[in-house]
């Protein structure tokens, strides 16, 4: 009789506590908005995601705040991109004394050599290839399962569904690129972020010679970029960082190149913008490419 009572009380306590356990979300940190989007999609309702570098932010040069350190200390699991994107992350983790599980989303991604001036050896923008994004998602799923084994089923289901969406996205991207004539698949852009995209889908991304965002363009600079566009027969320029529209107009008129719209590479836009999620971002970019490169 007493054994039954104890068993019943234990069962009662278990029943009482499991909803409480179920209600408390796993605290996860994602270093920037694209990662955050992935984690939300895989984690679903079980995970509360905090993103350190928000929409339109620049993860390369982010300066972490004390609030970030506190969030880190409270978190169960942290997702970083790796490949040298977040140079500031190691110090932050140490200073926050966090005991969170750290997951590198890009592990087992095949890295490319970097062409940018940030001084990295590897190009960190691996997510620009949808195939790599799928690797990210798989890593995130595994990381969440390690941090929260109880949610294994949920994570696997969410991941599978999202991976399906990514497959569809990949097909979209390939279709869009196929529609662009082969000899027109090249653009000039100040972003150094499209290396993986270019390699995966067969587009050439060329850096503009000379025209920079920080200083006044000289006649030499303008002549160089016009020559470059003419010689390499580049059909479109995406230079929205350079805010003198008249100069870009001038370059476009003199070379016959088209001026492209806004691209998103390192961060998502905010809710109201054209790229609030990863899938939206990729769609926005290929749409802009298609428009600019139509013959």
């Amino acid at each position, binding site marked *: 009789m007493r054994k039954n009572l104890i068993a019943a009380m234990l069962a009662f306590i278990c029943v009482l506590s499991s909803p409480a356990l179920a209600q408390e979300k796993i605290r996860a940190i994602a270093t920037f908005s694209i990662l955050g989007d992935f984690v939300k999609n895989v984690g679903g309702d079980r995970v509360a995601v905090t993103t350190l570098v928000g929409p339109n932010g620049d993860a390369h040069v982010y300066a972490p705040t004390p609030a970030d350190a506190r969030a880190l200390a409270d978190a169960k699991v942290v997702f970083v991109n790796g490949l040298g994107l977040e140079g500031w992350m190691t110090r932050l983790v140490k200073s926050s004394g966090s005991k969170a599980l750290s997951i590198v989303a890009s592990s087992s991604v095949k890295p490319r050599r970097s062409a940018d001036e940030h001084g990295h050896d590897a190009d960190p923008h691996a997510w620009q290839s949808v195939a790599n994004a799928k690797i990210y998602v798989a890593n995130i799923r595994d990381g969440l399962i390690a941090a929260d084994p109880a949610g294994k089923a949920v994570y696997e289901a969410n991941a599978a569904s999202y991976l399906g969406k990514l497959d569809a996205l990949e097909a979209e991207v390939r279709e869009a690129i196929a529609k662009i004539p082969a000899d027109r698949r090249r653009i000039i852009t100040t972003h150094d972020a499209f290396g993986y995209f270019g390699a995966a889908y067969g587009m050439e991304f060329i850096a503009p010679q*000379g025209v920079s*965002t*920080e*200083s*006044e*363009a*000289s*006649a*030499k*600079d*303008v*002549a160089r970029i*016009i020559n470059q566009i003419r010689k390499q027969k580049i059909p479109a320029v995406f230079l929205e960082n*350079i*805010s*003198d*529209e*008249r*100069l870009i*107009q*001038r*370059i476009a*008129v*003199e070379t016959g190149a088209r001026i492209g719209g806004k691209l998103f590479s390192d961060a998502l836009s905010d809710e109201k913008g054209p790229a609030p999620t990863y899938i939206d971002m990729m769609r926005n970019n290929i749409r802009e490419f298609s428009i600019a490169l139509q013959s």
Partner: protein
Amino acid sequence: MLYETLIAPFVEFEFMRRALVGVCALAVGAGPIGVFLMLRRMSLVGDAMAHAILPGAAIGFLVSGLSLVAMSTGGMIAGFVIALLAGLVARTTELKEDASLAVFFLISLAIGVTIVSLRGTNIDLLHFLFGSVLALDDHTLLLMAASAVLTLFVLALIYRPLVIECVDPGYLRSVSRLGTPVHLIFLALVVINLVSGFQALGTLLAVGIMMVPAAIGRFWARDITPMIAIAVAGGMISGYAGLVLSYQTGIPSGPAVILFAGILYALSLAFGTAGGLLRKLFPGRHLEA
């Protein structure tokens, strides 16, 4: 080799041709105005008025972005208001034009920079301060050409009373009522040329294409007509050479033009036939009579 350096850039690139036309138009209008400004001891007033048009252009920018119409209108309104005030104050009080107005013009520069920074980026500010001579579209070129033509036309009209007003204002007052109107028309021409120059060279350097060629002319001529001709020629040469310099070495174009003008000035200071240092130091044997 010479062709490559001096001619080829203009043959190959339309933006270079446009820039050249723009600065030449500017030199034609600004040259004579600069000479008169210099002779009337109004060089600093010209500089100050260039600063004064900045808040007007900045408000135009705030309203409609980098629109030619908005910025030019704003700049002209600000310039005319200041010109009127300056002219009237000098005429009706004992105060000369440069005195207390200097403070006001510095304030207007600060206001202008602030307004631009509200809406624009650092690059926008750079273009306000230093111009964008490489991005002259059709409308801007038209404006600059029209300013030059208008300036020449009006100057031809008011040439006589303007000269008299410079040399012997008391005499002009005694024989004519044109003194004040001519003075105000002249200030209006200064504003028009500054607004035109603002597009190509920005607010800090627009007055440079007025004053430096005029100073060059001073060292080569003793009569006003050749002085004006030399100023115009000096401005055009500086424009051409500045563009070539910017093309070959990569320094910004607007400052390159003024830099070259400065070089010409230094050469004139040293070797000019009318008051240059060399002549002063080594005047040669005196004449018989």
